[in-house]
């Protein structure tokens, strides 16, 4: 359940950039990984900051990081064809995956998380506080994002930019800044996902694989529908856990891959999307 929430958060990041800039950030998984590293290793393990200041610092760093990533690795390539932008984003992912090996060291690390192993027992089930924390955070972010897109002027700007960049620019929206903001926000989302999941997984470049699951969540749910992406994340998490329990834990990646392929074949717009969005890709 909570793993699914984290996938959902990653999916929100994808769907956010998709809605605003009309691209899928191929390096999103690596953003999650960077978030895990900054929060888990630097802020918590090394500096020993408590949860709230660590989160604030993380959000600030990743916001700046997102803006820089957009300016340096995405904007210069948008003028060329789509393939160039894609290859550039892949190269960015590759750069990040290896940069963490240089900045931090190559051995996987663990981090205790704000509550360690502590939890609450309800009946016979022991639920870790970390799980509850993940669910609360996710719901809060979900509501925040929904409110932002539907009811604030900036959210409307971003939606306008994603619908038609030229027209949006014509009515006075600074499209470039909007897209930069999008990258900042989605990298914050990715970082929060990384922060939430890092107590469960080891902090290593493998963390970037979460990106693929998040993408799967968008495929199963929908790229354009925020709630759909979230539900997709829950479903992917559910399939993965049950698949590895009942079929084989060694093939959990394969299970997720097959599910995603299945959806791409038979319902490429996802469970909650409208028909035409794939055609416009």
């Amino acid at each position: 359940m909570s793993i699914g929430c984290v996938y959902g958060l990653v999916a929100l990041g994808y769907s956010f950039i998709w809605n605003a800039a009309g691209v899928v950030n191929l390096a999103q998984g690596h953003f999650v990984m960077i978030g895990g590293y900054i929060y888990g290793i630097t802020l918590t393990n090394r500096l020993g900051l408590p949860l709230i200041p660590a989160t604030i610092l993380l959000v600030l760093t990743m916001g700046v990081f997102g803006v820089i990533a957009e300016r340096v690795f995405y904007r210069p390539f948008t003028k060329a064809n789509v393939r160039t932008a894609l290859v550039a984003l892949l190269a960015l992912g590759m750069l990040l995956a290896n940069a963490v090996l240089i900045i931090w060291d190559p051995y996987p690390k663990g981090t205790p998380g704000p509550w360690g192993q502590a939890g609450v027992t309800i009946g016979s089930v022991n639920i870790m506080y970390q799980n509850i924390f993940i669910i609360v955070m996710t719901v809060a972010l979900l509501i925040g994002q929904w409110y932002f897109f539907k009811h604030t002027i900036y959210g409307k700007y971003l939606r306008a930019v994603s619908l038609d960049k030229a027209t949006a620019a014509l009515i006075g929206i600074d499209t470039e800044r909007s897209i930069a903001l999008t990258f900042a926000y989605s990298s914050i989302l990715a970082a929060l996902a990384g922060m939430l999941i890092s107590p469960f997984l080891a902090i290593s470049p493998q963390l970037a694989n979460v990106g693929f699951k998040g993408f799967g969540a968008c495929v199963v749910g929908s790229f354009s529908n925020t709630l759909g992406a979230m539900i997709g994340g829950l479903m992917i998490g559910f399939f993965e856990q049950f698949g590895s329990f009942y079929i084989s834990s060694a093939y959990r990646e394969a299970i997720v891959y097959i599910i995603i392929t299945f959806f791409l074949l038979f319902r490429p717009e996802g469970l909650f999307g409208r028909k035409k969005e794939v055609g416009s890709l």
Partner: protein
Amino acid sequence: MANTDRNRIALGALAIMALVPLFTQHSYYLFVANVICVNAILVLALNFILGFAGQVFLGTVGFFAVAAYLAALMMVKVGASFWLAILVSIVGTMLLSVVIGLPSLRVSGFYLALMSTGFIAVVNDVLRNWSPVTGGVFGIMGIPRPTIFGFRMGSNLFMYIFSFVMLALVAWLAIRIEDSRFGRAFKAVRDDELALEMLGVSATYTKVLAFVIAGFYTGIAGSLFVSLHGFVSPEVFTSAYNSLFMCMLVVGGLSTIPGAITGAMVLTVLTEVLRPLREKYLTVFALMILLVLRYEPGGLYTLLRATISRFRGRRLRRQTPPAVATVGGEASAVK
């Protein structure tokens, strides 16, 4: 016209490769030269999909792994000769290309790129866990070198001559394909799918064909790879390895055959030079991709052509015929 440039550069690159044994008989250098041949064949495969057909499918390493394991299994477990093994490997990889290609090609762009990363992860999972067949994490050992008429290519020198002949053959084939109507169809899929369909050519068929041709190349590369190393294990076939090939193609020159070969040459040597950095060398490569895309999207190939033109004392004509425009033969003017 412009294609004579392409042929000259391809020929020049191959000539340099051919001269390697004259300068050094050192086993290690010849081994590296061997690796260049394998890599170049694989980059040619990637070029058919990413370069010509313009599909951002980066699962080449997944196919490569399957090809390598097929060849290894044929030689070690079945006891087949190299020639039977390479045949099985080629056919198997081509079939897999169709099976994977058909569903993947319903989607394009970002979807395809992410699906291909997933594909590599799955292949890796299977190789690691299907121990009775693949040998698990330990892989397969004791793979023999190929033999021709009873002569075994035991030393790296003979192996190199063999791989080089293979590379030269497939490079020639690639050039023939590029100039055929299939080559034109691939580029049309990349540049304007709708226009291609209007001319009565099926876009899906063309894309699958690109996958199958890539599968053919990958099969050859995989067989050579296992024969060269003598063993195969799953840890090689990761997404990072795939990025390496993408980097070779982009740095050499996307959509160009000589670019694929020169890219493989330069970057394989660079990999060896950067070996002290261990896994961190990919940082350098990632930066190279970004710099090339930013400042010289045509890669080495464009630079080489410019040099040739200057050598002849004439300016590089930016307005070459549309088939080979600025970005290494890519009609970027379409955008």
